[in-house]
């Protein structure tokens, strides 16, 4: 908008250059190109909706239908008979929960990176950034093994706890005891002992883990939700916009005696609403459209998400194209509606996604 206005203002000031909007051959050509582009953008959607209202045997007719048929309702009923309702619920549940939780987790972490200085900050943030470059297919095999065998997750958790204790010990020593070599040596020995202890305990840990019988997480909601929460991109986005919050505002809260949690909840989050919305929509869309990972972990029909269910319909020996297109249309429609309602957040989320690379 503003660019347009400045353009007009400057043209008014320079009478030598004639910028007056007019219908010459050139602008007609530009409109033709733009409208052709718009047609190509929109037509596949139209075709999808048209075909979703055709009975199955009419979809691949020659010449193809270009106007709506009367089988929309029977296609929907057919889809429901094929377990579509359950998939719709699964998709919606996964997308909503992921979006809420990932906004929460990312805003907490983004706040820590943006507004606190603490030992390890650069290191941890650097690790997050590094991982942005890694294609997510790389994690698929180990993640699948973890979901199939929870003992792996338990083992990782135990290792993390040990590493955390050691790291906290080292940080404590470096920060608090620099002037006393005896204490430093003692602390170092303690951390060393802890590590040796971990090595010695490892066989015991192995036998303990083997004795456990844990349920598998394959075909569960958490198998799809949890990996998506480990999203460095969201943290990066939140950090960027939280840096704009003035420190004085937070300090004012602290002087008034508000706890750190209350400051975060009542001062920081409300000012972040646009970014929260952008990230929330981005996460929702990611999970709603996600195909690769749910295809791998959702192995029971009742737990399939929409894309996986529709893929299963494509795999049938007799493909009901009317139903298939209705399923595709019903999957696309909610995202389109959200897009039309929250255009700005949507585009800013996508543009922020451009930083992701």
């Amino acid at each position, binding site marked *: 908008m503003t660019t347009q206005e400045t353009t007009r203002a400057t043209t008014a000031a320079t009478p030598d250059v004639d910028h007056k909007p007019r219908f010459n051959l050139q602008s007609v050509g530009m409109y033709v190109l733009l409208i052709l582009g718009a047609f190509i953008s929109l037509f596949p959607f139209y075709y999808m909706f048209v075909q979703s209202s055709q009975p199955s045997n009419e979809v691949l007719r020659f010449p193809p239908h270009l106007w709506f048929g009367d089988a929309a309702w029977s296609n929907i009923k057919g889809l429901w008979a094929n377990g579509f309702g359950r998939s719709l619920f699964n998709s919606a549940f996964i997308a909503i929960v992921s979006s809420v939780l990932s906004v929460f987790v990312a805003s907490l972490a983004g706040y820590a990176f943006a507004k606190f200085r603490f030992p390890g900050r650069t290191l*941890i943030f650097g690790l997050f950034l590094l991982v942005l470059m890694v294609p997510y297919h790389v994690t698929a*095999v180990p993640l699948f093994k973890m979901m199939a065998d929870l003992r792996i997750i338990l083992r990782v958790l135990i290792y993390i706890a040990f590493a955390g204790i050691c790291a906290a010990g080292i940080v404590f020593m470096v920060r608090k005891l620099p002037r006393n070599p005896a204490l430093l040596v003692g602390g170092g020995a303690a951390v060393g002992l802890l590590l040796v202890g971990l090595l010695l305990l490892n066989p015991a840990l192995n036998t303990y883990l083997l004795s456990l019988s844990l349920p598998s997480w394959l075909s569960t909601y958490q198998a799809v939700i949890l990996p998506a929460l480990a999203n460095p991109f969201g943290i990066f986005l939140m950090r960027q916009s939280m840096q704009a919050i003035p420190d004085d505002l937070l300090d004012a809260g602290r002087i008034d005696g508000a706890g750190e949690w209350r400051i975060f909840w009542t001062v920081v989050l409300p000012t972040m609403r646009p970014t929260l919305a952008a990230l929330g929509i981005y996460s929702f869309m990611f999970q709603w459209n996600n195909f690769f990972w749910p295809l791998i972990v959702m192995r029971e029909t009742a737990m399939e998400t929409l894309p996986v269910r529709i893929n299963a319909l*494509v795999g049938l020996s007799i493909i009901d194209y009317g139903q298939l297109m209705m399923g595709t249309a019903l999957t696309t429609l909610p995202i389109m509606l959200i897009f039309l309602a929250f255009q700005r957040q949507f585009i800013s989320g996508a543009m922020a996604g451009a930083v992701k690379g």
Partner: protein
Amino acid sequence: MDPEVLNQPPRRDWRFWRQTTPYFFLTPALLLFMIFMAYPIISSLLLSFQSQNNPTGGFSLDNYQRLLGDRTFRKALTNTFFLLAIQVPLQLSLAMVLAVLLNNAVIKFRGGFRLIYFLPSITALFAVALIFKLLLNDEKGLINYVLNSIGLPSIRWLTEPWTAKLSLVMAITWRWTGYNMVIYLASLQSIPTELYEAAELDGANGIDRFVNITLPLMRPTILLTTVLSTIGTMQIFDEPFLLTRNGPSNETLSVATLLYRTAFQGAEFNYASAIAYAMVLIIAGFSLLQFRIAQRGED
């Protein structure tokens, strides 16, 4: 309680909390990151260095050796490179043309056009694949109908090696052009109009202005979109999996669909991990190369 006591700040406590607060805020993200990101990335690397036939036999380069001689992997790689070579320049130049057109103040309904062009890029990839599967159907697709009605023969879009690849290019271009256009448009709008006016006074025509003003100033954005599209195309999965089902005879097999097939249909986890790391190396190499080229261009 005594108001005097309340007014005394609990000093030691406060300092402790002040110093540990960021770690509390960071804990959920850090835990999730370590369990579901860092561990799988490391574990995948370790898996790739364990022989597929003898996983407990310690460090081995078997998988990478096998990768070098694997015809199917080479095929997936050439297919993906082919898509890359056609698809990235095509989609980015289309996006640039549309962005330049839309940046023109003469055009009305610019917001509307932008909205329409952006619409495909919010659509699920699997939906794009299925819609194009119908449009491009070998016997009864709409595109072939249009070709027939202007007197051209039908094309077997999804079952011939070349046309199947072109079909993928079409579907991907349709999905992503608007996305890149919005990025270009934002970048175009940050170029001061005075530059164009000065050039116009000097007698530069539209193409001169584009080559000498727009392109140089847009260099960082063009680099960004090139890197993003390259990374995206290298990882392509949904389209070949659904639109062409990797066929005909692996002609549209991509690295990611090969990875899926190896790991989750063939249960060769170690070999699949080696494929994944080959993908990481190639993506990193490409990104580095593109940054180098961009830097050289600047000198």
